[in-house]
């Protein structure tokens, strides 16, 4: 059963005001196009969860879509601060809930596994556990020692960008795979954006590469270049220049508004956005071919 639809349709159907949204990706495969579409559709009061909020959450917060962020590292990766989220937190305008990387990912792992909590070894740092009551302790019944636990994170909707999938949503992902699989299994609804929609036979040629099975997927959206300024391994490069530029843009609220006007509200979709970026950017982000050695599954 095909679940193909436009990204606009998928956001309309599956992202509701007030939802807890997890747009997955650790630096890689961040679904910027979906964030922009959420902004265009004026979604409100979202809870935005991500280990690493990255620029996409800075932009969504700037656009007034969010009432809260959940994160473990709030920075512009490799550059510095995430200025909008930071300023809104400092100004008391934005709720936040904070973890370390492993506790954030353990929450997703618990959500994906249907467990009421995940245990972690103690870190003894203490302060984060003190300010966030979601951290609890249980006693290890074997040693009598304390173990730290976190509750499951179950997003209302996960948005996962992938290199290729079939029309049903069986998705091949490679490169940095961060928390994509866990986010999809933890969530109630799953939107897949893909660089390429491929025939089922391509997926079936390499089942070990399929991290997300179709039956947990609600929408499949063909969105080439969805991840820019983040990247898709093997398809285009990370636009490090834009990450540096955003550091400048985000110093001024007016410039941020201008950016949103021009690059989000000013384009109908990702096709237009990519065209608008222009030939120089296209060339700069182009990548050459480095293919995997094939494996033989065998005819049985």
């Amino acid at each position, binding site marked *: 059963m095909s679940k193909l639809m436009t990204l606009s349709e998928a956001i309309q159907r599956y992202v509701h005001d007030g939802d807890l949204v997890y747009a997955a990706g650790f630096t890689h495969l961040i679904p910027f196009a979906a964030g922009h579409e959420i902004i265009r559709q004026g979604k409100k009061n979202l809870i935005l969860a991500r280990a690493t909020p990255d620029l996409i959450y800075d932009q969504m917060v700037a656009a007034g879509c969010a009432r809260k962020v959940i994160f473990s590292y709030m*920075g512009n990766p490799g550059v510095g601060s995430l200025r909008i989220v930071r300023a809104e937190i400092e100004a008391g305008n934005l709720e936040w809930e904070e973890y370390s*990387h492993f506790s954030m990912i353990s929450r997703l792992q618990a959500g994906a596994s249907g467990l009421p909590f995940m245990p972690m*070894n*103690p870190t*003894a*740092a203490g302060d984060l556990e003190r*300010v966030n009551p979601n951290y609890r302790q249980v006693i290890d019944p074997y040693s009598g020692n304390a173990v730290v636990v976190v509750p499951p994170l179950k997003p209302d909707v996960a948005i996962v960008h992938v290199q290729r999938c079939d029309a049903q949503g069986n998705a091949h992902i490679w490169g*940095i795979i961060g928390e994509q*699989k866990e986010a999809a299994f933890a969530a109630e609804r799953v939107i897949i954006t893909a660089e390429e929609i491929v025939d089922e036979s391509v997926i079936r040629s390499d089942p070990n590469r399929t991290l997300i099975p179709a039956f947990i997927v609600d929408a499949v959206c063909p969105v080439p270049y969805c991840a820019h300024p983040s990247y898709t391994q093997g398809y285009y490069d990370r636009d490090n220049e834009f990450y540096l530029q955003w550091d400048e843009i985000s110093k001024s609220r007016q410039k941020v508004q201008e950016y949103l006007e021009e690059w989000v509200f000013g384009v109908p979709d990702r096709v237009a956005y990519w065209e608008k970026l222009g030939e120089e950017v296209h060339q700069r982000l182009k990548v050459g071919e480095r293919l995997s050695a094939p494996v033989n599954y065998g005819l049985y």
Partner: protein
Amino acid sequence: MTEYTSPELLTINAARLLRDGDVVFVGVGLPNLACNLARRTHAPNLVMIYEAGVIGAQPARLPLSIGDPTLVSGALSVCGMYDIFALYLQRGNIDVGFLGGAQIDRFGNINATVIGDYSHPKVRLPGSGGSMEIAAWANRCYIITPHQKRRFPEKVDFRTSAGFLNHRQEREAAKLRGAGPQAVVTDIGILEPNEEGELILTALHPGRSVEEAQANTGWDLKISPSLRFTEPPSEKELKILREELDPNRIYLKGGE
């Protein structure tokens, strides 16, 4: 004596702390350079692991972020984030972690979260990322930081990751897997924990003084009875850094 910048000095001294065969959890920036320098000098069998889930990277360019695609193409292995923290770090497979933060206190505790009150932050910092776990579970941790009084308070505003807490015994009682911070490399010298877990000055870089170190530390900095001077950066170390590792001076330019 050859001239060198402060980042070069930090990087070279950090590199020397690594041992051949170490499995290192690497960040971008200076730790990345330090590891690559160590591999090209005394530690050819260093295993470099990036928190993004990349093992044995062979980057063809200097990565801006820890999730750069150049780390992935040609790496030995890539795994998910849960696995890198659970199977590698928590399992005890990581020998060395590098840490940084806005504040490092007398007992090596680190603040990367907030200046001021947590609920009403004066300055909101990026937060823990993986440092809460790295500080607890890597066998040894190293900190690279400029030596400034505001970075070395008596006590951190927020304890993002554990050094020796209030005393080495307190860390030991917490039964953490790792041994805690083993050295803080600054542009003035090197601090190491004493028997109580308090950071004391154990080495000075050439031309720097005890007084300078004490004046730039927020607590009454003790001096090791066996205080030594570090070897100045060698021609070879500087050459590898400048010609092979960061030819465009992205991380190594001075003036920080």
